[in-house]
């Protein structure tokens, strides 16, 4: 799947859609960006004063920008920050990203906690999950696992540091891709759940929000460029298999044809009206781990998808057309 282009060069970059066709210099852009995030948080009452905020830090551009902006705004909002990084156990990828997070933590002087799948989930690293779910001719679906497990891991990490809220760096492009993807895959459960600026925290979970949700990816990249932030920009080794790539490709096409498409999709997602609980909720970490431990990793995934396949009854010798994997952002 295509990834975002590296930041532009010396001359004033084209103004991101958010500001309209006015030209701004780097400093004004950054100030406007920070004001935007502040407005989002304040208007949505996302992070009340006194909140201890766990920032999901992956080392990538979104969480780096998020942490930086929140640090700038922290005095005004009256919040304190803790960095929580998740180690999924993906060799050759996560270790390098974690190094970036550690550098950032040192630079910002923020406490950093790393939680590892291997510790939390009985030794299951993502590489082990990928090996387990690799089937004959089937796609691996490891992204589905990773997303759900990361959400749980972030929750655990946040509790460890005594946080009251969790924030993640999802930007508008992420949200737009998610809604496209959920429709294409018929994931009514996730459609019904997602969309707003954050979840209040069902069933005892900590409240989560996404302060960058209205910022487009271009803006995030530009902000990181102007503030000279150090982040890790390679994609996960499993990403090429993810279904999200199709949604991302579509989003890029739509954006090229009509720049407002990204925010229009976010707007659409916020206003979807689905029949209440027509489907059971998306399987959680426990269900997935259960399947893994029993040696039947597709147990929890397969159930949710079966009714949607129109491939007809499986025939002998024909590989079952399994649901394509997705990279679900953990939120």
């Amino acid at each position, binding site marked *: 799947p295509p990834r975002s282009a590296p930041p532009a060069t010396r001359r004033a970059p084209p103004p991101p859609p958010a500001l309209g066709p006015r030209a701004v210099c780097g400093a004004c852009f950054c100030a406007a960006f920070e*004001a935007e995030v502040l407005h989002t948080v304040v208007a949505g009452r996302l992070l009340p004063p006194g909140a201890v905020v766990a920032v999901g830090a992956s080392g990538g551009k979104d969480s780096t920008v998020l942490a930086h902006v929140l640090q700038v705004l922290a005095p005004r909002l009256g919040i304190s920050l803790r960095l929580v990084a998740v180690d999924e156990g993906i060799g050759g990828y996560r270790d390098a990203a974690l190094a970036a997070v550690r550098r950032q933590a040192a630079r910002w002087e923020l406490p950093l906690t790393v939680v590892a799948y291997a510790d939390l989930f009985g030794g299951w690293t993502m590489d082990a999950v990928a090996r387990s779910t690799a089937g004959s001719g089937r796609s691996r679906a490891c992204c589905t696992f990773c997303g759900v497990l990361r959400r749980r891991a972030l929750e655990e990490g946040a509790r460890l540091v005594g946080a009251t809220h969790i924030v993640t760096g999802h930007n508008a492009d992420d949200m737009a891709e998610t809604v*496209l993807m959920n429709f294409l895959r*018929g994931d009514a459960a996730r459609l019904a759940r997602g969309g707003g600026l954050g979840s209040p925290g069902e069933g005892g979970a900590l409240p989560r929000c996404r302060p960058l949700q209205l910022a487009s990816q271009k803006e995030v990249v530009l902000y990181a460029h102007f503030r000279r932030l150090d982040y890790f920009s390679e994609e996960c080794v499993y990403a090429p298999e993810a279904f999200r790539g199709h949604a991302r490709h579509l989003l890029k096409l739509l954006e090229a044809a009509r720049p407002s498409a990204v*925010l229009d999709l976010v*707007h*659409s997602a*916020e206003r979807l009206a689905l029949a209440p609980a027509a*489907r059971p909720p998306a399987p959680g970490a426990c269900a997935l781990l259960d399947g893994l431990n029993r040696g039947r990793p597709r147990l929890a995934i397969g159930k949710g998808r079966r009714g949607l396949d129109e491939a007809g009854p499986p025939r002998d010798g024909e590989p079952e057309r399994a649901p394509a994997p997705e990279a679900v952002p953990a939120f």
Partner: protein
Amino acid sequence: MCQVGEDYAEPASEEPPPRQPGREQKCVKCKEGLPVVVIRAGDAFCRDCFKAFYIHKFRAVLGKNRLIFPGEKVLLAWSGGPSSSSMVWQVLEGLSRESAKRLRFVPGIVCIDEGAACGLSPEARAKTLAEMKLILQTVGFPWHVVALEEVFDLPPSVLRCFAQEPVETEGAYKAAVDSFLQQQHVLGAEGAGDSPSLAQGEEQLSWPCTQDPQNPQSPDRPPTAAQTEALSRLFDSVKTLTAKEELLQALRTHLILHVARTHGYSKVMTGDSCTRLAIKLMTSLALGRGAFLAWDTGFSDERHGDVVVVRPMREHTLKEVAFYNHLFAVPSVFTPALDTKAPEKASIHRLMEAFMLRLQDQFPSTVSTVYRTSEKLVKAPRDGCAASPPGPRCLLCMCALDIDTAGLCLPSPGCSEEGIGEWVLGFSSPLVPSAPLYLQTVPRLLGLRLPCICPRRSPPPHRPLHPAVLQGWGGCRAAVGGPGPVRGAALLSQGGPPSLRHRAAVLRLPREHEGLALPGPPATLHLGRGPAPQPEGLHRAADPGVPG
């Protein structure tokens, strides 16, 4: 997967190559006939079973929704394309069956000639019309051919949403059917042996004689050159293909509504197939219409109140339609559309269509998956409170506004015209000088002081929204949600662009009205990213109470 039928030159009875070597080559349903078509993955049907399957689906969709009452007048919207042609054919055949299973409504056909919007020459249009009339005469229902130019004649009452009784209960439907059957029985079995296309023996079905299918408006009068010119100008002034497409749909809908109301039709059937609706859902999503998906793609669309639009073909895929039409010689007429031969990236609609069809190749259940999800969408009132009075509605698509009108303020002087983006008309767009009168009249009568949604970077000055007092046009008052002072916000197109934080919206007024041919300067409805333009001509507004 579907080698059968790819080559249309082959006769239908030719045996397809087997899906797997050594596989039995028989219809999966009856196990006897030779299969001629593959539906879904691996289900090969013979000709008769396919026909039964297709017809059954059509009737099942109508039957399970129970919205079409016996004896009701239903207008079939026919574009000439394969899906709507198939729909017309199904209705034709359905009406001719033996009485127990006969379809029970009274059909008419409407056909909109959109040639002017698509840039067709008068000769091409005439040729197409001739072909269409041939088919219409064969079908035999009362028909109405209307040129798109007639939008310029529409009265503003087209945009009224007549409050309607809630959908009849199950009991009422059953009672209606029972009483209808009883009446039929009393009249005797006259209709059973008649010619297949007519049920003239039954007095309840008050059809006009099919030899004279013209409506009193004499559709043979072609549109004037000036009207055609005006329509061309309207479409030329809309910059993007996406916006043109949305504008065309809005105007087409208004016109069909008008025909339906004028001739007493309470239902309109459109031929949207499963494939088209899946694409439409994704397109609407990308255009910001997430709040209205259930109306845009569901079986019934009752946003107009008295006329309900239904989509009986929504479970038929385009592939099934194409095969059926080919195998059973359903006539259709090809007309170029607005985006015929347009490059793939020309509009959101084209992009989405190409993407979905490509993805469908790779994941054959894509279309049906999207369709199944669309069935789970509900028509939720905006704030979840059904009892509250209906809010303001969009001028063009007639849906209740989904933008947050709470933070609206009045336009401040000195707003510049910068930052006007290109917007799809479904949400906003510049309606240029040549906009149809009915679209201009409503704003003029209502939109005195216009609200401005300030861009997200500069918080709105928070002046209270000043209600504009209606100057006596009851219909428009209903159009914006009930009696009483009307908010100018009602006129804003619905919030396709996201929340109020992102856009500025201003409705400008025409300086004067000169009549149909050349309406005055712009009644512009646009949303831009920057601050709102200074509205002009407001001093001519009749409402003295508006702050300057």
